[in-house]
């Protein structure tokens, strides 16, 4: 794998080259898919443990309680440190090992080259490397649970000075450096592929919205991740070499003076972390918006409303996302003038987000709506992501954020956008593109059970969090009953927990459906959804090289219901 074999042309690939270290974007995409689903389940499991403690604080965890060592859960009752570790790792795993690899690594890798008519990514071997840094990085991240001191316990945000003195953080930082490398390799690949490898006739303005979403996302990953990498290096230096980048002078911890030289700034980490982490949340949301756009266009049998608005809004979100980060830090002590600056930029960035949602909703008007499974998920995305976006507004306004910061309101807000938003859309994408990956459909009955169970459970988990937050319940609180003002709303914790366990149960039909349909699903033709975009103009699954000959693109991506035509869709590559 480390040398070119261009000289002698083709040779039959070994098992390792074909299935393990494959350089084919489709195989890599499926590797990312399965791996990220597994990590999502792991993150979900961690949350399941936390939710028990939140609903029934101080009681032993059923079934698993006695399996944990005494320092984590004495007598089966979760300790505070274990709770913190679960919280930090849940966030980290879901964001960096789950949603982003799924949205970008899986869907982006598989679908983007097909949709632009390319034979593969621009750098197939680098693509393989990006997966094979993601997987070891993820395993390293998880292995921190088994290290002395346990996993990272300072929140996924890792604020110093706590993160400098807490256990588990070093492994978190090392894993992040590896994972960031994987992301950067992927981002470079996506950008060069989109810029250089489009089929003839595929101008930028004929690309599907999904490709635009991946393009903007890759720009965000490319430019925003290196600052976190640098910040993580500084934090590693603080932990391992006892530098004082983030440790202020005269720090006293538990009665003892900290041994470092002092002179550092804890807020420096906060700025650098959020400089990445804010664009990161748009990385979480833009590809799923792209998926929803594709599904809606296909299942309304009409062009999307406002294609150019959608694209310009995504670009505007990308640009503005670099200028809003300190809204996560409004109460950190920054000068009010700076707070006002970030308030204004945050309000501005809500405009393109609303524009995108509006275009998607207006796309439904006058359409011949087909209520199949992908469409169900796309439709569910609209109001649920809407709630997520709207609940962000009081957080973006400095004055209300003073009250709401670090309460459950924030947790409710971001879970609405990422879980009922991004993850719902990604699930819809699975049902939508499964026929392309495997040439078979997923079972509809199981799918509908999954859909209704999932959407209801998710709402049951996160809606109560908004109420609890408004009541003042603090986040990252191991025992919610420790705050007197939480007692009236403690019942909502039970509702959330039960909903969470229901959500887990409703994923079982999905998992079974996925694997069963791979081999025994109903076989589908090349273009079962009668779609217009290029990924449907090749066999399912596509062979190596994707298209028999380089496709030529004659029109835009959403030519549905064109008057005078026999069929209600006009494939981009059909000459007539």
């Amino acid at each position: 794998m480390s040398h070119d074999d261009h000289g002698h042309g083709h040779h039959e690939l070994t098992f390792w080259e074909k299935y393990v270290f494959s350089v084919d974007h489709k195989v890599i995409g499926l590797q990312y898919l399965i791996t990220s689903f597994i990590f999502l389940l792991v993150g979900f499991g961690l949350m399941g443990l936390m939710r028990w403690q939140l609903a029934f604080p101080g009681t032993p965890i059923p079934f698993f309680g006695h399996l944990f060592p005494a320092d984590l859960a004495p007598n089966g009752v979760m300790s505070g440190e274990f709770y913190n570790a679960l919280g930090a790792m849940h966030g980290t795993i879901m964001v960096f090992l789950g949603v982003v690899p799924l949205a970008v690594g899986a869907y982006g890798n598989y679908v983007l080259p097909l949709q632009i008519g390319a034979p593969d990514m621009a750098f197939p071997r680098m693509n393989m490397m990006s997966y094979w840094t993601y997987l070891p990085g993820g395993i390293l991240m998880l292995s921190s649970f088994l290290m002395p001191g346990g996993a990272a316990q300072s929140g996924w945000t890792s604020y110093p000075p706590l993160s400098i003195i807490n256990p588990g953080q070093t492994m978190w930082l090392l894993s992040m450096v590896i994972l960031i490398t994987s992301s950067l390799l992927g981002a470079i690949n996506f950008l060069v592929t989109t810029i250089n490898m489009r089929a003839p006739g595929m101008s930028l303005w004929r690309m599907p919205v999904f490709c635009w979403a991946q393009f903007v996302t890759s720009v965000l990953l490319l430019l925003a991740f290196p600052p976190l990498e640098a910040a993580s290096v500084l934090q590693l230096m603080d932990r391992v070499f006892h530098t004082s980048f983030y440790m202020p002078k005269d720090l006293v911890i538990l009665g003892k003076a900290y041994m470092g030289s002092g002179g550092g700034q804890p807020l420096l980490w906060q700025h650098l972390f959020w400089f990445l982490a804010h664009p990161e949340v748009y990385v979480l949301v833009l590809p799923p918006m792209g998926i929803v756009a594709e599904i809606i266009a296909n299942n309304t049998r009409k062009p999307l409303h406002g294609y150019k608005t959608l694209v310009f809004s995504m670009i505007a979100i990308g640009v503005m996302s670099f200028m809003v980060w300190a809204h996560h830090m409004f109460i950190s002590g920054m000068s009010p003038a700076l707070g006002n600056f970030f308030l204004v930029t945050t309000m501005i960035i809500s405009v393109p987000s609303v524009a995108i949602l509006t275009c998607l909703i207006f796309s439904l008007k006058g359409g011949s709506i087909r209520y199949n499974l992908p469409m169900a998920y796309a439709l569910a995305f609209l109001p649920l992501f809407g709630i997520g976006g709207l609940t962000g507004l009081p957080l973006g306004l400095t004055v209300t954020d003073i009250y709401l910061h670090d309460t459950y309101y924030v947790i409710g807000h971001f879970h609405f956008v990422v879980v009922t938003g991004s993850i719902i859309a990604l699930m819809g994408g699975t049902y939508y593109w499964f026929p392309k990956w495997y040439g078979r459909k997923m079972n509809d009955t199981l799918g509908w059970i999954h859909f209704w169970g999932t959407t209801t459970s998710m709402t049951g988990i996160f809606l109560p969090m908004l109420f609890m937050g408004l009541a003042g319940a603090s986040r990252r609180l191991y025992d919610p009953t420790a705050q007197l003002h939480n007692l009236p709303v403690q019942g909502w914790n039970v509702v959330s927990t039960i909903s969470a366990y229901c959500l887990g149960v409703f994923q079982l039909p999905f998992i079974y459906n996925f694997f069963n349909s791979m081999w025994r699903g109903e076989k589908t033709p090349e273009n079962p959804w009668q779609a217009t975009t290029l990924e449907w103009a090749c066999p399912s699954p596509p062979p190596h090289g994707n298209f028999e000959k380089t496709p030529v693109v004659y029109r835009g991506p959403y030519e549905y219901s064109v008057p005078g035509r026999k069929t209600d869709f006009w494939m981009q590559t059909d000459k007539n």
Partner: protein
Amino acid sequence: MAKNNNNHDEHRPDVGMYVKVFGALMVLTLVTVAISKVHLPRPQAIGLGLFVACIKASLVGALFMHLWGENKLIHNALYITVACGAIMILPMIDLAMVAHRITSPADVASQHPHEGGEEGHANSVTETIELPASAAAPAAAAKKPAKKAH
């Protein structure tokens, strides 16, 4: 499948120019070191040093990296990157301005050596809140130990 390995975009090298740039870079390096030995006041030293560094970096970038006459796409990508970096740096300056509010009391004292007096002063870490009149006596007593800690 596309197999267009025959289109090249590499720049034609100009060895004479490379040698001249090398000479310029060496001279500018010596200039930088010489300036620093003069021990100018800090702001001027930093300004001048950065200015010379920018000239050297521009020579390397424009001529060795062939940015001069390069494709517009590369230029645009770099403009966006530099803008992104600038956005990062600017609010950090605010951090530097307010940092004294969150550093140690000892630092605050050394930065404000002449500030004293009964009332808590703005931006002091040990600022005490004025309590209502009925609690005046305990408040006054509470203030005294705090000031001792300076």
